[in-house]
C-alpha cells in the first residue's frame, strides 16, 4: 500500500510541465472541434465549390480549399469526428481485451496465466497491418469491426504490462494476507490491483491512441476509410496527394493536425511514465558552500619530497542536483616507492573516489576542485588528458573491487590481458600471447592456457581477480591501486590473493595503495594507513601502532566493531549512527555526532590535524583519551 499516493502524484506532475499541459490542451481542442464542428464552421464539409478549387489559404477559407473546392478547415473539424471515433473504438477494445485478460492472468496465475503468455507470444509475432487488411478484405468497409479487430491485434502489448503489474501485486505479502483473511477477490482487484495498474495502463493507452490514430489514417490514405465524400484525416492526405503538383499546401493541414495529435498522445504517455518512475519526493540538495579550513590544512603532515604519489589538500566534487558535493575534502596523503599504504574507512567515506581521482577517472561530471596530485614529480592535476592516459597502466594501474564485474563479459580472459599487453608493449601476435600467458602465470594461475580461453562467466571470483591482477601488471606499473581487492572473495581465496599481492610487491618493488574497510587485510599488508571519515583523513600512522593505540575515536570504533578484536569481557564498541550525507556534514568535527568523547568545542569549528606521536597524526582534540 506504500505506493498508493502515486495516483495523486500523476496529474500534479502533469500540470507542472508546460509541454504536457499543451499536449492535453491540444487533444481537448481537437475533440471539442469535432463535436462543435457545425457551430465552428459555416461550411458543409462535403459541399463542393468549383469556382474556388485549390484556393490556398484565403480570408474566406483560412486553410484553403481542396480539389473540389471544399473548405479544408471544415473537413478537418468534421474529419476529427471520424478519425477520433475510430481511434476511440480501437483503444476501448484494447482496454477491454488487454486489461481484462492481463489482470485476470496476473491475478489468477497458474494455467490461465500460462495460456495467456502463450497466446500473447503468438499474437505479438502477428504482423498487425497486413492481418488488418485480411479483416478488411473479409468484412469490407465495416469500420467498427475493423477498429475492433485493430484493438484486438494491438492488445497483447498492453495485456502483458498489466499482467506484470497484477502479478507483482498478487505476490505482495499483504495481498496474500488479505486473501487468507477472506477479503473478496473483487475488493482486492478494485482497491489494490487497479491503483497499481493504473500508471502503466495510462502510459500504454496514450501510446496506443497515437498508434491507432496513425493506422486509421493509413487505412484512410489507402482508401479503406470512411466512404467518400465523408472527410477523415487519412483520406484528406490521399486527396491531397492527387493534386500534389498543383497545390502541395493541401498536405500541410491534415498532416500537421494528425502528427500533432500523435505527438500529444506520446507526450502524455511520457509524462505519466516519468511521474510513475520519479521518486515520491525529491529533496533538493542545497548548493554546498566550500568552507576552506586553512588552519587545519596547514598542519597536515607533509609528504617527503621523494614520495612516489603525494596528494596535497585534494578536494573532489561530484555533481549533485544543481550544485556539486565535495565528497573528498582537503585530503593529504603520500605513498613511497615500493610501499604498501592502507586507506581505511566505512563505505561512503570517499576512499574509492580518491582512488579514481589519482587515476584521473573521477566519475562523470566530477572533478578535483582543489589541491595537487603529484606522481613521480609530475603534477597530475595539470596534465592534459592524453598525458594522463599515457600514464595509466604503465605507471599507475588498478584492480577492481568486484573481480567479475571488472572483466568484459564478451571477451576471454586471454583477449583482455592480451589487449593490454599489445597496448603497452606491442609486438607480434605470438609475442603478445606469450607475454599474456606469462602474466597469467605470474598472477598465480598454474594453467594459463586454460584460464586464457575462458570467458568471465566461466571463472571463479578468485581466478577472475588473478586475471584482473594480470591485466594490471601488463604495463609494469610503479603504483597499483587495489580497491577492496578481496572483499568479494571467500576467506581462503582472500588470503591467497593477499599473498600474491605481497609477493608481487616484493619482487617488482611496486607500491600499493590498498583501499579496504577490513583491518585484518590492512594489518597483514601495510606499514602505514590512513583512516578516512566523511571525506577527510582523520588519522594516519604506522602499523601496528594504529591498531594498538588509535588516536581517533573513529579508528577506535572501527577497530572495536570487529568482533575478533574486541577484548574478552569488553562491550563490542560498535559506532552508533551512520556516516553523514556529504551534503549535510556537521560544521565542526565530522564525527562529533557519533562520538562518545565529543564536547561543545568539537561541534563548533573544523578540527586541525595534530601530531599525537611521531609519525602519527590525528584530527581529534581528545586524542589522549581515544
Amino acid at each position, binding site marked *: 500500500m506504500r505506493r498508493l499516493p502515486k495516483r495523486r502524484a500523476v496529474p500534479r506532475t502533469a500540470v507542472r510541465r508546460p509541454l504536457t499541459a499543451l499536449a492535453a490542451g491540444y487533444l481537448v481542442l481537437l475533440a471539442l472541434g469535432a463535436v462543435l464542428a457545425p457551430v465552428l464552421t459555416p461550411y458543409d464539409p462535403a459541399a463542393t465549390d468549383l469556382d474556388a478549387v485549390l484556393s490556398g489559404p484565403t480570408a474566406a477559407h483560412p486553410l484553403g480549399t481542396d480539389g473540389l473546392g471544399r473548405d479544408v478547415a471544415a473537413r478537418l473539424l468534421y474529419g476529427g469526428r471520424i478519425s477520433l471515433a475510430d481511434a476511440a473504438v480501437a483503444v476501448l477494445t484494447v482496454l477491454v481485451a488487454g486489461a481484462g485478460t492481463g489482470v485476470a492472468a496476473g491475478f489468477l496465475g497458474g494455467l490461465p496465466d500460462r495460456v495467456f503468455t502463450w497466446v500473447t507470444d503468438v499474437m505479438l*509475432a502477428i504482423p498487425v*497491418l497486413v492481418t488488418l487488411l*485480411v479483416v478488411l478484405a473479409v468484412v469490407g468497409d465495416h469500420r467498427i469491426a475493423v477498429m475492433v479487430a485493430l484493438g484486438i491485434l494491438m492488445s497483447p502489448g498492453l495485456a502483458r504490462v498489466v499482467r506484470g503489474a497484477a502479478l507483482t501485486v498478487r505476490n505482495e505479502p499483504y495481498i496474500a494476507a488479505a486473501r487468507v483473511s477472506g477479503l473478496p477477490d473483487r475488493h482486492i482487484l478494485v482497491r489494490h490491483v487497479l491503483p497499481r495498474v493504473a500508471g502503466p495502463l495510462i502510459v500504454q493507452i496514450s501510446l496506443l491512441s497515437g498508434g491507432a490514430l496513425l493506422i486509421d489514417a493509413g487505412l484512410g*490514405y489507402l482508401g479503406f476509410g470512411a466512404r467518400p465524400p465523408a472527410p477523415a484525416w487519412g483520406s484528406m492526405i490521399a486527396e491531397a496527394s492527387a493534386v500534389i503538383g498543383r497545390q502541395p499546401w493541401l*498536405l500541410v493541414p491534415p498532416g500537421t493536425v494528425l502528427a500533432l495529435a500523435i505527438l500529444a498522445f506520446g507526450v502524455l504517455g511520457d509524462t505519466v511514465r516519468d511521474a510513475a518512475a520519479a521518486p515520491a519526493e525529491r529533496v533538493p540538495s542545497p548548493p554546498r558552500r566550500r568552507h576552506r579550513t586553512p588552519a587545519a590544512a596547514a598542519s597536515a603532515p607533509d609528504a617527503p619530497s621523494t614520495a612516489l604519489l603525494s596528494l596535497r589538500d585534494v578536494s573532489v566534487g561530484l555533481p549533485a542536483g544543481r550544485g556539486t558535493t565535495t565528497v573528498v575534502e582537503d585530503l593529504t596523503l603520500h605513498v613511497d616507492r615500493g610501499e604498501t599504504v592502507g586507506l581505511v574507512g566505512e563505505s561512503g567515506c570517499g576512499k574509492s573516489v580518491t582512488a579514481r581521482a589519482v587515476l584521473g577517472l573521477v566519475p562523470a561530471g566530477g572533478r578535483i576542485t582543489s589541491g595537487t596530485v603529484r606522481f613521480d614529480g609530475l603534477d597530475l592535476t595539470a596534465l592534459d588528458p592524453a598525458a594522463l592516459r599515457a600514464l595509466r597502466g604503465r605507471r599507475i594501474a588498478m584492480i577492481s573491487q568486484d573481480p567479475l564485474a571488472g572483466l568484459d*563479459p*564478451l571477451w576471454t580472459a586471454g583477449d583482455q590481458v592480451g589487449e593490454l599487453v599489445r*597496448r603497452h608493449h606491442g609486438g607480434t601476435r605470438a609475442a603478445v600471447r606469450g607475454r599474456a600467458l606469462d602474466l597469467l602465470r605470474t598472477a598465480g594461475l598454474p594453467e594459463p592456457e586454460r584460464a586464457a580461453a575462458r570467458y568471465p562467466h566461466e571463472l571463479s571470483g578468485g581466478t577472475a581477480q588473478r586475471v584482473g591482477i594480470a591485466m594490471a601488471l601488463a604495463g609494469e606499473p610503479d603504483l597499483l591501486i587495489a580497491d577492496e581487492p578481496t572483499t568479494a572473495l571467500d576467506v581462503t581465496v582472500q588470503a591467497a590473493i593477499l599473498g600474491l599481492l605481497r609477493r608481487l610487491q616484493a619482487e617488482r618493488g611496486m607500491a600499493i595503495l590498498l583501499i579496504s574497510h577490513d583491518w585484518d587485510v590492512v594489518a597483514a599488508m601495510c606499514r602505514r594507513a590512513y583512516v578516512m571519515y566523511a571525506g577527510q583523513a582523520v588519522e594516519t600512522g604506522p602499523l601496528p601502532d594504529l591498531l594498538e593505540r588509535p588516536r581517533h575515536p573513529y579508528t577506535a570504533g572501527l577497530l572495536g566493531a570487529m568482533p575478533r578484536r574486541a577484548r574478552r569481557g569488553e562491550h563490542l564498541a560498535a559506532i552508533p549512527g551512520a556516516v553523514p550525507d556529504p551534503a549535510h556534514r556537521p560544521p565542526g568535527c565530522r564525527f562529533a555526532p557519533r562520538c562518545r568523547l565529543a564536547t561543545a568545542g568539537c561541534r563548533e569549528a573544523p578540527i586541525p590535524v595534530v601530531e599525537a606521536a611521531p609519525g602519527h597524526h590525528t584530527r581529534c582534540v581528545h586524542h589522549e583519551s581515544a
Partner: protein
Amino acid sequence: MTRLIARRLLVSGLLVGVVSLLTFLLQAAAPGDTARTILGDHYSPAAYARLHRELGLDEPVLTRYGHWLAHALRGDLGTSPVSGLDVTAQIASRLPVTLSLTVGATAATALAGVALGVLSAVRGGRLGRAFDVLALAGYALPNFWLALVLVTLFAVTFPLFPATGYVPLEDDPGGWARGLVLPVTTLALPGTAVFAKQTRDAMLAALSRDFVTALRANGASERSIVLRHALRNAGVPVVTLVGLTFIGLLSGTVFVEAVFAMPGLGGLAVQATGQHDVPTIQGVVIVFTLAVVTVNLAADLAYGWLDPKVRSA
C-alpha cells in the same frame, strides 16, 4: 545453443501454423465466399452450387484448411479467384521489391543509427537531446505523409529522383538504386533517430560498467574501449532493435509502396484487400509472418554470437 535454436524453430513453425489457421477461419466465418466473389453480382444458383462444390467449399472448414496447408507446405498458396493468377508466383515476383525496400531501409537505419548513437554517447550532450526531439518527430509523422513531402520536394519541385516505380536490380542497377532513394529514405528517416537514441542509451549503460573503468585505469585505448568493448556490450539491445526495425518497416512498406506505386507485397495486399481476394492476402500474411519469424530467429542467433553466456547455454 543448438537446443535453443531447435526450440525456437518449433515455436516458429507453430506460430506460422496458428496465424494461417486464424486467417483461414476468419475468411470462412465471413459473409460471402470465394464462389460469390468469382461469379460477381449476377449468377444462377446452379452455377453457384457447381462452383461451390468445385472449389471444395462444401467441405468442413478444418478439412479445407488441411487441404490448403498440405498445398502451402509444398509452396502452393492457391490461385486468386479474382485474377486467376497463382498466388505463390505473384508473391515471388513481388518479393524482391519489398525486400529491397525493407532490407535497404533497415540497413540504412541501423548504420546511421549506430554511428550517430555511438557518436552522441562519446561526445554527449546536445546531440543526444537533438535525437530525443527527432525521435519524437519520427514517431509522430505518418510515413505516407513524409513520403508525399519528399516526393513534393525531391521529385516534383527538384526532379532529382523518380516519384514512382521500381526498376529491377538485374535490369539496371543504377535505376534500381535511384528509384529506392526516396522510399528508403522515407522508411529509414523516422527510425534512425529512435535507433540513435537507443544505441546511445545502451552505449552509456555499457560505458558506465566496472570493466570500462578497469580497462581505462589499466591503460586500454579509448578507441578500443568504445568500439571493442562498449559497442559490443551494447550489441544485444541494438540487435533486438534491428529486428524490431525490420518488422516495423515491413508494415511500413504497405503505405510506402502505395505512395511510390511500387509493385511490392504491400501493394499486392492493398489491391487484394480492395478486391476481397482472400487467398492472395492470406498468402501475403503468411509471407510476412515467415519474415517476422525468420528475423526473430536471426536475432536469437546473433545473441549467441554476441554473448558467450548464451552460446554455451
